């Protein structure tokens, strides 16, 4: 297997971008990544996108966007695993380069979510749950995470305030990220008083509806060394992918995200690293409870202690293991297909020492965890600066 490096990143601003279509957002991020990498020829394009069919009525997306970039002819493929589509797009590109099928790949993620009304968006996201046997009864995505939150609270004593502490921390980090959807300081009281969405989760426990795109250029380390010049070389040293039952009725446990644990174990094994080696992490905080459960499943904290960890500041900037310095899905925004790619862009910025005010001092090893549905899929990547 060949070594693979990330040599360019590109992001659009995240938000309700009514003036731009999916293809325009995508092309902006792609051009930014190509410029950052200094390449204009590609062997392949991968596109992570959850549901262009439901959100904008468009399938066959990979060819559409390749053409938009003036690159019709280049091989392109869309991959989908709900909100883990972006992480999966990276894994697909990583596998191609590692296997020697491609030298330079443009890895992208995109979602355009505001061309439909809120109820349609809720429905579209809900299709990541088991539609025939869960969705049929009216359960929503926040509803499924609310059930996991209640189970975690009752089993481990996780408190309502600890959930809110995740939102407070991530919004504080998002203030330092120019691409973030919300530049908004949020207090514990704001979270606890926000509109109820699905008990016990409130509006400020939830990531928003977002338009946005993210892109990376990845290459074999040989090719990367020719291209990066004086900049630090960021290698992808671990990649793990795992699944769990989508339906909560078929889960072995409601208090552990088994797919996250398995994907993490696989990425740690490939990289030869352990949880205590990680200096900075981006995790999939689509809901506040998700960050707490992910940090436990990744081995940063024991099961049941993720809530007290965030309350004690262990995951804040300057803490033992800073989590979501970008602001996370919560504050940066969650254009679902773009999220897994945007997480990698943040880790690359951290490892290059280019993260500005939110820089984690001395970060050399980073981890990104992307998740589909209520934990039915997870993708974990470990990156290291050479």
């Amino acid at each position, binding site marked *: 297997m060949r070594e693979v490096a990330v040599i360019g990143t590109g992001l659009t601003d995240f938000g309700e971008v009514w003036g731009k279509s999916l293809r325009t957002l995508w092309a902006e991020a792609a051009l930014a990544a190509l410029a950052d990498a200094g390449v204009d020829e590609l062997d392949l394009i991968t596109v992570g996108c959850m549901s262009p069919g439901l959100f904008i009525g468009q399938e066959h997306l990979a060819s559409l966007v390749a053409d938009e970039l003036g690159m019709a002819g280049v091989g392109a493929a869309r991959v989908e695993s709900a909100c883990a589509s972006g992480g999966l797009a990276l894994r697909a590109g990583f596998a191609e380069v590692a296997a020697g099928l491609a030298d330079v790949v443009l890895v992208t993620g995109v979602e355009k979510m505001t061309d439909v009304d809120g109820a349609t968006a809720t429905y579209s996201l809900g299709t990541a749950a088991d539609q025939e046997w869960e969705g049929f009864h009216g359960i929503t995505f926040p509803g499924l995470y609310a059930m996991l939150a209640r189970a975690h609270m009752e089993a481990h004593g996780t408190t309502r305030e600890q959930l809110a502490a995740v939102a407070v921390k991530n919004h504080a980090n998002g203030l330092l990220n120019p691409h973030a959807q919300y530049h908004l300081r949020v207090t514990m009281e704001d979270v606890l008083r926000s509109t109820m*969405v*699905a*008990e016990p989760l409130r509006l400020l426990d939830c990531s928003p509806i977002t338009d946005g795109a993210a892109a990376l250029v990845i290459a074999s380390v040989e090719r990367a060394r020719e291209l990066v010049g004086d900049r630090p070389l960021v290698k992808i040293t671990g990649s793990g992918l795992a699944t769990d039952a989508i339906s909560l009725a078929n889960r072995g446990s409601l208090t552990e995200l088994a797919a996250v644990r398995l994907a993490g174990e696989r990425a740690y094994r490939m990289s030869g690293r352990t949880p205590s080696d990680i200096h900075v992490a981006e995790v999939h905080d689509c809901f506040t409870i998700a960050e707490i459960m992910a940090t436990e499943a990744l081995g940063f904290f024991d099961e049941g202690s993720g809530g007290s960890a965030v309350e004690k500041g262990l995951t804040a900037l300057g803490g033992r293991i800073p989590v979501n310095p970008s602001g996370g899905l919560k504050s940066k925004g969650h254009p679902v297909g773009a999220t897994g790619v945007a997480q990698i862009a943040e880790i690359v910025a951290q490892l290059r020492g280019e993260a500005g005010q939110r820089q984690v001092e001395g970060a050399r090893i980073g981890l990104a965890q992307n998740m589909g549905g209520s934990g039915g899929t997870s993708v974990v990547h470990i990156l290291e600066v050479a």
Partner: protein
Amino acid sequence: MTFPARAWREFPQRYRLEASRCTDCSKVLYPPRVVCPGCGGRSFETVELPRKGKIVTFTVVHVPPSGFAEQVPLPIALVELDNGARIMVQVGDVAEPGELRTGMPVRLEFRRISSDGEAGIICYGHKAVPDRS
């Protein structure tokens, strides 16, 4: 939207709560499957789910998906039935959602679940109701 073929296909599970029991390891699967996730078995017999169980976890949905707006606040629970099978269902006959508790005994009753507008299919199935017997 629920299309007629899909609604029709699911009648046995929705209306009669038909499940399948693995003839190798006796695990009860709802809905029925092709492969038993417990033992890999591929041979099943049809059984009906018991109607009684208890709430494993629950939520009350305040922001509903399309088609459920009139039912808000909408309590939904994951229920473990007396034979160990788990099923996600709405909870009906609850005056105040605040009275729901983990571990609360419930029984399943045949109810209307949703309808696709004025001309669409009316979807029936089972809801949990508090079992005070």
